[in-house]
């Protein structure tokens, strides 16, 4: 019980003092996960749209692969990405192991199937004849795509939230490909694990609170937008 109290106190201290290192870690967490989510949204929604709206052989197989990808253990992704990015690995020439770039890459790999899977479900859930109705109103292909995305905006926003939530709280892959390097690739999750390992439970607690608050804030903002779109 003292520990929790100590943790809360330490958290306030660090936050109020605007401790430079903590701020840096927080900002890096947002940057890395934000960019990774953005990439996954671009890829996930566009490919999801293609899969959902076109007919092609093996479609069911592709959709099952995507759905399996949604449950990919992040630490497995981390291991695979690390092996690829090793100096002597196939992508070693990129020289990005133990950098935030590698973390963005791994997190994007984790988030993309999530965003893609939910997008496919969202678009397939639209009425079957909706596409024809939109085209019959004289829409160009591009306009049709935009209208369909707009019609599915509620679940699509949920997809973005799911993608972001999945990666900002991720720690296994981030440690493996990032290296948890002080001031460079250390984010809230990896720092929390490290501080716990060192026995600095109050600091770990403080970092956890900040992380929770961050996740809550982002989700809260998105939920407001999502629920606002709901007509009265």
């Amino acid at each position, binding site marked *: 019980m003292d520990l929790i109290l100590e943790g809360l106190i330490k958290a306030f201290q660090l936050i109020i003092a605007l401790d430079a290192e903590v701020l840096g870690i927080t900002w890096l967490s947002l940057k890395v996960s934000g960019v990774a989510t953005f990439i996954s949204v671009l890829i996930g929604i566009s490919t999801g749209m293609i899969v959902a709206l076109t007919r092609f052989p093996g479609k069911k197989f592709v959709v099952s692969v995507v759905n399996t990808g949604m449950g990919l253990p992040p630490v497995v992704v981390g291991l695979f990405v690390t092996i690829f990015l090793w100096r002597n690995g196939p992508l070693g020439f990129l020289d990005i192991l133990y950098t935030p770039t590698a973390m963005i890459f791994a997190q994007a790999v984790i988030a993309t199937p999530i965003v893609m899977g939910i997008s496919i479900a969202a678009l397939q859930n639209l*009425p079957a*004849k*909706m596409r*024809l*109705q939109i*085209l*019959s*109103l*004289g*829409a*160009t292909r591009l*306009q049709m795509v935009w*209208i369909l995305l*707009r*019609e599915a*905006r509620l679940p699509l926003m949920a997809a973005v939230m799911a993608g972001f939530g999945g990666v900002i709280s991720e720690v296994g892959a981030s440690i493996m490909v990032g290296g948890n390097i002080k001031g460079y690739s250390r984010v809230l999750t990896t720092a929390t694990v490290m501080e716990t390992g060192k026995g600095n439970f109050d600091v770990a607690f403080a970092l956890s609170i900040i992380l929770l608050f961050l996740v809550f804030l982002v989700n809260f903002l998105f939920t407001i937008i999502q629920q606002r779109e709901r*007509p*009265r």
Partner: protein
Amino acid sequence: MTLKETILSVENLKVKLGGVSILDIPSFCIREKEFVSLIGPNGSGKSTLLLVLNCLVRPVAGRLTYRQDDISSREATFDYRRKVSMVFQEPLLFDTTVYNNVASGLKIRGMQKDETRERVMRYLKWFNIEHLAPRSARKLSGGEAQRTSLARAFAIEPDIIFLDEPFSALDPPTRNALTEDLASILRETGITALMVTHDQTEALRMSDRIIVMHNGSIVQQGTPLDVMNNPSNEFVASFVGMDTILQGKVVKASDGVVTISVSGAEIDAVSNAKFGETVYCCIRPENVSIELVHPDDLTSARNIFLAVINDISSFGPFLKLTLDCGFPLVSYVTREAFAVLDLKEGKKVFAAFKATAVHIIPGK
């Protein structure tokens, strides 16, 4: 009636899905300001034809011409599609307000805000949904939603409007009201319309021309009266509700009046069929009247038969009687008449119908 200009025509249209032939139409056309109804059983290809005419489905073969211009090229197809619109059985409204829905076709075309506003309000008024403009599409009744869908399709002021069973999901009073509104708006705007419907009464009331489809082909087209009373074959006959179809041989023919021998009985009809020909006699149930005693000279009907009531079933506001006169005969009576005549199964009655009520189709 002056011959109107052809606005849309097809030639040698073939549509296949997965190797199965869905449509096979050698030629077909719609004239300007016409209201054409497309009827036929499920699976006859009506909806597919509509989608092809709208250029939403590509045929395997065939040519579409709009006002004398071939519209097979991508560009021409797109320009054509911007001049027509379609309403489906489901309203398929967008998740926004009624106003935004009706405005969507205009927004797609890049119309300015003021012009859009004027247009949208006009069509909202015409369809009596002005008061619903700010309401969300999710909160509409079936009738209100379909009105919005219609307003949305009309707001772009198309040359041709295609409708695929737009009212079949609505209850009868709503359906009637909407049918009236649609008919009057079409009359006022002079827009050409092609509607698929299951409701033959609706088709009868509203259309200039009816087209009957079966198994992907057009089996008959003509004015409503034409199709309803002069079906060209047994399929159309039974489809348009001529429940009694009897095969027989012409045993007497003179001056356009013939006598047909059917299962031992003789039926008089008006026809130019020749002696010895095998024909089908088609009789509408509404044209068969029931009497308890032989009507003698009280009726001008030339065909009077003693009959036994075999089966009684409900048919909307009527009761459908299946009679045995030596040949099967179907009649409709009102519930009032049914009660007054005290009809029941097994009762012997007299069935009578005029010679003019017998429609002759050449037999096989």
